[in-house]
């Protein structure tokens, strides 16, 4: 996945501030993601990675700062305008977040039917094709989400995320809870799907193997700010003691684990 040169970033988060009570989670965070680029934000548990993603997706409102999609500010948009922006998005949730009252194919087709207003039969055909794209057999489409393993749920979540041919795909801890082989399968699928769609990708993870595989650029989040960012190839020679401690998984170092989650 190579980043295209474009002056307007696909996603821009500028000076984002978000707190929960007295706990400051984002403290003036700045991050740009270029068109067609795949950026992975790494950081320890409770450092605000999910909060960053939710602020960009419009699920949380930051106290201060701006989020721009294609140069358009998206904070404070009306519900209808926000839904229009969200049509550019695909999202793979950490736990899959599949709708357990719908069959697998209906989950995959959901964005097409509800958001894109496609006919049910047409959406069904697309859903089955997307399930094949993520390596699932057609029979899986007729199952309920509760009948699937964790890895299969992630694949279905990925199929749902790409079903609407989004311009931007967000991945929230895509490999968490999976065995190393299934994690690698998911990483390969993420790379393949985003490349096939030509989509911009923003992922958050603390799985370094996953980050190295899917990222063009890695950014590290600590204490509410991006403290380092650079090409994936440079992460081992970042010269940043926080990054070094994180990628080597050392308990000793400048990073002290927070006791309370945000």
């Amino acid at each position, binding site marked *: 996945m190579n980043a295209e040169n474009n002056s307007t970033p696909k996603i821009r988060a500028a000076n984002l501030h978000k707190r929960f009570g007295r706990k400051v989670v984002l403290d003036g965070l700045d991050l740009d993601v270029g068109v067609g680029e795949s950026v992975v934000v790494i950081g320890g548990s409770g450092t605000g990675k999910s909060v960053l993603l939710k602020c960009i*997706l*419009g699920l949380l409102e930051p106290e201060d700062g701006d989020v721009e999609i294609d140069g358009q500010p998206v904070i404070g948009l009306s519900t209808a305008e926000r*839904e229009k922006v*969200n049509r550019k998005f695909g*999202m793979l*949730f*950490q736990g899959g*977040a599949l709708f357990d009252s719908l069959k697998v194919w209906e989950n995959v087709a959901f*964005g097409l039917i*509800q958001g894109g207003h496609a006919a049910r039969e047409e959406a069904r055909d697309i859903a089955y094709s997307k399930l094949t794209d993520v390596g699932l057999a057609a029979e899986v489409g007729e199952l309920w989400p509760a009948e699937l393993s964790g890895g299969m749920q992630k694949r279905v979540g990925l199929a749902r995320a790409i079903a609407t041919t989004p311009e931007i795909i967000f991945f929230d801890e895509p490999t968490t809870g999976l065995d190393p082989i299934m994690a690698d399968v998911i990483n390969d699928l993420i790379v393949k799907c985003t490349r096939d769609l030509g989509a911009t990708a923003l992922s958050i993870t603390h799985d370094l193997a996953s980050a190295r595989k899917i990222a063009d650029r890695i950014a590290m989040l600590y204490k509410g700010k991006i403290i380092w960012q650079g090409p994936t190839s440079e992460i081992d020679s970042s010269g940043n003691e926080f990054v070094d401690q994180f990628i080597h998984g050392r308990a000793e170092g400048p990073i002290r684990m927070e006791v309370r989650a945000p």
Partner: protein
Amino acid sequence: MNIFQPIGRAFLRFLQAVGQLALFAVVSVSHCVRPPIYPRLIGRQMIEIGYYSLPVVGLTTLFSGMVLALQSYTGFARFSAESAVPNVVVLSITRELGPVLAGLMVAGRIGAAMAAEIGTMRVTEQIDALTTLSTNPHKYLVAPRLIAGLTMLPLLVLVGDIIGVFGGYLISVYKLGFNPAIYIKNTWQYLEYLDVVSGLVKAAVFGFIVALMGCYNGYYSRGGAQGVGAATTNAVVSASILILISNYLITEMFFAR
């Protein structure tokens, strides 16, 4: 520490919750009347609330009607007013017992289920997923339930009224020795249009309350299984209390002289 501090904090929290509920209700109701409408989801909720609650409501009103006939008979026998039993049964069932009992039973059955389902969707990020798929959760989850609650509870109560009066008839005729024709004649003779209508208006309000409290508590549930459990309890308790309060207000509105 100032002793008024915790009282003030609790009062502010209460006001905040009332404001949040009012806002939730306004937004949700506005989505009930704005397209797109989801007929498939509304139909599913109507079946869930109307059809599947019928046995519970039917049994409750049947036995209430039976008890009412027995109690009023033994009470009225003390001053030789047994002939008033059909009137008491039909008025009590249509005005009060039908709507209130149906409302409370549906609050326990449906309000709890709504809170648990939406609460689980909240804590498993399914509601966030709806938003990212350009689908408004108020429109997709809440509006169909409100419409179904508002429309199905009056139907349930109408059926419950008939079953309740039939329960009174069974006891009066087969146990207390009433003449069937006279019992039915007395039932019809003293029943007014307003008695039934007031009960149905109550039922519509109660149906709205049950659905609103179920959805509201589920929507704002937090913290995993414990949060969903608390949301379920709160949905049933708050809906039950609001049903009893609004029952008084509607009765006052229809029958106060």
